[in-house]
């Protein structure tokens, strides 16, 4: 009885220590990635290839999801707003919710599951098949050659994808609101332009997606690099990438929103 309690406490303690340990290693890993980024900028080809596999291949899912999220926002927003006789404000509602929140957050969640998991699986398999070790044997630094280009590709792609998501969403909201339901087109755009501030809303949205891009890519790379070199280990790491980066996106979103929009305006 006594020894079981001791064992349970020990197990909890070991888990906590392990989590802190991993966090420390992850920070060192991120620092190394930044320190060895020089090669990927002097050989831009490395980054463009990764932008293709993280950014361009995520394009379809981002654009289609953005369109549908915008269309749903248009319908739901109209339903609520017309009760207060404010259907003309539909454009404001669609644009603000997309640019401030949904664009960066949903695009980042999709990015984590579409591109983040792929990055983890790729690097995890490279490690399992000892490609990374082979690189080290040839005096090629795997962080500079494999990790850093993927990191910068993710950081560059994320804000662009989020912007496309928002723009597509506004278009979806316009399709449903103006073309389908028949909200006045002039009011839709002019009220939107009056309410959406470039610095307050759009720039802050871009900053958000930039931070999410750093978080998602760093988590995905670290999980891949740290994965146990087995089939099971890689699959576990891929799952952890999606779970951890989704939680990180939502937590960071709360913190950033608290800083950016403190209930003013």
């Amino acid at each position, binding site marked *: 009885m006594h020894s079981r309690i001791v064992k349970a406490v020990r197990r909890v303690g070991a888990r906590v220590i392990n989590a802190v340990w991993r966090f420390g290693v992850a920070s060192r890993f991120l620092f190394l990635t930044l320190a060895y980024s020089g090669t990927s900028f002097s050989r831009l080809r490395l980054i463009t290839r990764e932008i293709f596999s993280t950014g361009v291949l995520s*394009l379809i899912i981002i654009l289609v999801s953005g369109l549908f999220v915008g269309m749903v926002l248009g319908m739901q927003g109209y339903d609520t707003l017309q009760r207060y006789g404010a259907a003309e404000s539909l454009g404001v509602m669609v644009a603000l919710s997309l640019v401030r929140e949904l664009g960066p957050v949903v695009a980042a969640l999709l990015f984590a599951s579409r591109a983040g998991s792929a990055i983890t699986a790729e690097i995890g398999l490279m490690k399992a098949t000892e490609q990374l070790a082979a690189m080290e044997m040839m005096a090629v630094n795997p962080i500079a050659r494999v990790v850093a280009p993927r990191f910068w590709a993710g950081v560059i792609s994320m804000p662009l994808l989020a912007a496309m998501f928002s723009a597509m969403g506004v278009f979806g909201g316009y399709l449903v609101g103006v073309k389908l339901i028949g909200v006045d087109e002039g009011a839709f755009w002019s009220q939107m332009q009056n309410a959406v501030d470039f610095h307050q809303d759009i720039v802050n949205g871009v900053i958000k997606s930039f931070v999410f891009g750093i978080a998602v890519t760093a988590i995905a790379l670290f999980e891949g690099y740290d994965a146990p070199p087995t089939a099971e280990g890689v699959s576990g790491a891929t799952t952890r990438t999606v779970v951890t980066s989704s939680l990180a996106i939502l937590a960071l979103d709360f913190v950033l929103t608290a800083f950016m929009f403190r209930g003013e305006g």
Partner: protein
Amino acid sequence: MERTTIDLWVGLFVMMGLGALLVLAFKVGNLGGVDIGESYAVTANFSNIGGLKARAPVKSAGVVVGRVTDIRYDIENHEATVTLKLDKQYPFSRDTSASIMTSGLLGEQYVAIESGGDEVVLKEGDKLKITQSAVVLESLIGQFLYNKAADGGEKK
């Protein structure tokens, strides 16, 4: 430098992303809106500004001629001092009157100005003397109820 198909796709991707940002900035946001170039600032005191906010439009005959740039509390007169930035191409007479209006029943508030008959035009730093405060719905309802009650009393 050799070209690959991937470069084409990446170039397309980056251009689409930047294009989306431009669309957001100019079509969705206010960056392409009526930006006042040359302008002059005048102030006006109101006893109550209601829900007026900085950046609210200033309209004359319904046309946007400027923006509210600053709202302060005047300690001496216990009034609100509102700074209006007006477009240089619209001259207004010195006895222009300003009032705070609401677009629609529950819409945003704006400052409406109406030019008077004076020959001398407003210049930078002038103060509008004739102002009319925002209509506060609560006081309006209160007044209405008070009048009703007074009417009811007389009839008996």
